[in-house]
């Protein structure tokens, strides 16, 4: 396994008008690791994910993806990004949406990649449906399928399971594990604690900085609480 981290961020800063969205954020994600990004609304989770996806240019600090600058990594198609809202072309079918993004990523075998992604999110039977006719949860799955296309080495998932039922969520996570065994690194932002429990490591973010890091057990231990949600609330409220 290569020693380069899949994602390495150091001292990332970004200011929007008078708000420090990111205030010196440090985070690394190793290949084959799932890191959960937890934090209250407005803590900088989405800004950080967008910065890794090359959509926000930081004012300071460095972000490297597989040893490359974010923009180069994105251009090389090694980053799969799932936006918070299911950003899809409503007039197109599920399959047409996927093949569009497959083409943008320049996948060698787009057909196979599309079938695999459709299978993972269990939406193969609706592949010819127009996206506008799908329910919110289904659209979320299509959106995830797009990020998964071609198994990029780094997956950025911004609240991937919003509106997805628990059984389906379990399916997702077992697939995520299949991917990480093959070396995929994942950065997942979430509000769902049972999802956080499944991550290898959690990074608790507040005011654009990582205030606590470690496995779910370590976080619970540090906060001295029995469950993760309590720990999360306690650590979030602590003065920094």
């Amino acid at each position, binding site marked *: 396994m290569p020693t380069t981290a899949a994602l390495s961020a150091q001292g990332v800063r970004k200011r929007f008008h008078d708000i420090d969205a990111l205030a010196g954020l440090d985070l690394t994600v190793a290949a084959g690791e799932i890191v959960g990004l937890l934090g209250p609304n407005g803590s900088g989770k989405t800004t950080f994910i967008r910065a890794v996806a090359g959509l926000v240019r930081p004012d300071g600090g460095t972000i490297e993806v597989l040893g490359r600058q974010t923009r180069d990594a994105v*251009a*090389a198609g090694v980053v799969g990004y799932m*936006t918070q809202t299911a950003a899809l072309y409503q007039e197109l079918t599920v399959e047409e949406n996927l093949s569009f993004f497959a083409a943008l990523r320049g996948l060698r075998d787009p057909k196979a990649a599309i079938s695999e992604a459709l299978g993972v999110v269990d939406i193969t039977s609706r592949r010819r449906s127009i996206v506008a006719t799908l329910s919110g949860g289904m659209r979320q799955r299509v959106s995830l399928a797009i990020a998964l296309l071609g198994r990029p080495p780094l997956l950025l998932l911004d609240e991937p399971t919003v509106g997805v039922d628990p059984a389906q969520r379990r399916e997702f996570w077992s697939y995520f594990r299949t991917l990480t065994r093959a070396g995929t690194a994942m950065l997942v932002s979430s509000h769902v604690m049972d999802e956080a429990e499944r991550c290898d490591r959690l990074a608790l973010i507040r005011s654009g900085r990582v205030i606590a890091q470690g496995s779910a057990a370590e976080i619970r231990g540090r906060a001295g609480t029995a469950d993760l949600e309590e720990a999360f609330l306690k650590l979030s409220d602590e003065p920094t």
Partner: protein
Amino acid sequence: MSGRRIAAVARRIVEQFRRDRRTLALLVGVPLLLLLLIGYLFTPSTGSARASVAIVNEDRGPAGAALADALAASPSLDARRLSATDAEGALRDGTVTAVIDFGPTFSQDALTQRRIALAVRLEGSDIFVNGNTMGAIQKAVFESISGALAKLQLPGASTAGISLNVTYLYGGPDWGTLDYLAPVLIPFLAFFLIFLLTDVSFLRERASGTLERVLASPLQRTELVIGYIAGFFVFALLQTVILVVFALYVLGLRSNGPVVAIFVVQIGIVLVAVNLGLLLSAFARNEFQAVQFIPIVILPQILLSGLLIPIASLPDLLRPFAWAMPLTYVNEASRAVMVKGAPLTDAVVVRDVGALLLLALVLAVLASRTIRREVA
């Protein structure tokens, strides 16, 4: 019926728009700007009503010279005295819009037939220019010639006896209003609709979040812009084919030029429309603002591009702005092709299509810049 509920709805609307500063600015700024433009446009100014004409005197008798002098001095005309050949050249290159010709037998006809006939040759490619020119010539004849005639003491001559024999270089009396308007209406419709289509759909791409996703892929911004141009071009071309076929073969409108030249000119303007739509969508935060841009983009083009008001008739201050309007170039080129029968290789057509392509390129570069800026 509850006054409080009604007030709640009304208050909410006021609060919403108070936050949308740009819409408020447009709401006030757009009408003021347009009112100013239209107001200025229709302020009577000297010069604008004058017609540029060439006066040719080939008369072997004395009458022609005297009347030509009188006519040339008329305040309604911006007249130059030319030989017949030079006058025809000036008519062709657009320096003058009409040639008034006193023929070799002018004096003789006046004496023997008691009839004064002026030969007027109109450039003819623009129905509005034709109207303005004829109006100016008639006014000049009415004002200047009667006095000159009285001095000449031709037996029986009077203004009532003057007739204008009008011939056309392009177009003609058998050309209907729509024959004249089709060359400018077809590109205008294409420009307007394609601009609208691109503007709104790129705004949707930004608003729905799909742009974010597209930009987080290996796709480059220039590739995105070129892809957009190519995609909309399919519909623009389809629209052009339908418009042209409908105009020429269903409505039976006239065109003297090759159909392929009509298409090339159309391609120039739709490329401008697509890129302008892409560029301006960056400055609209929502559909409402995008809609507000329409009058800003469209109305100055209608007023200043020679579509309805000949450029020569614009007030001096506004005339230079005509050449800042994409439609000006397409109107000139399209009239050259459809009315004058210019081929694709015609200098004016080449220059105008070149200007449109250059403008489209500049807009495309600016549009791809705006996509980049949003991301930074």
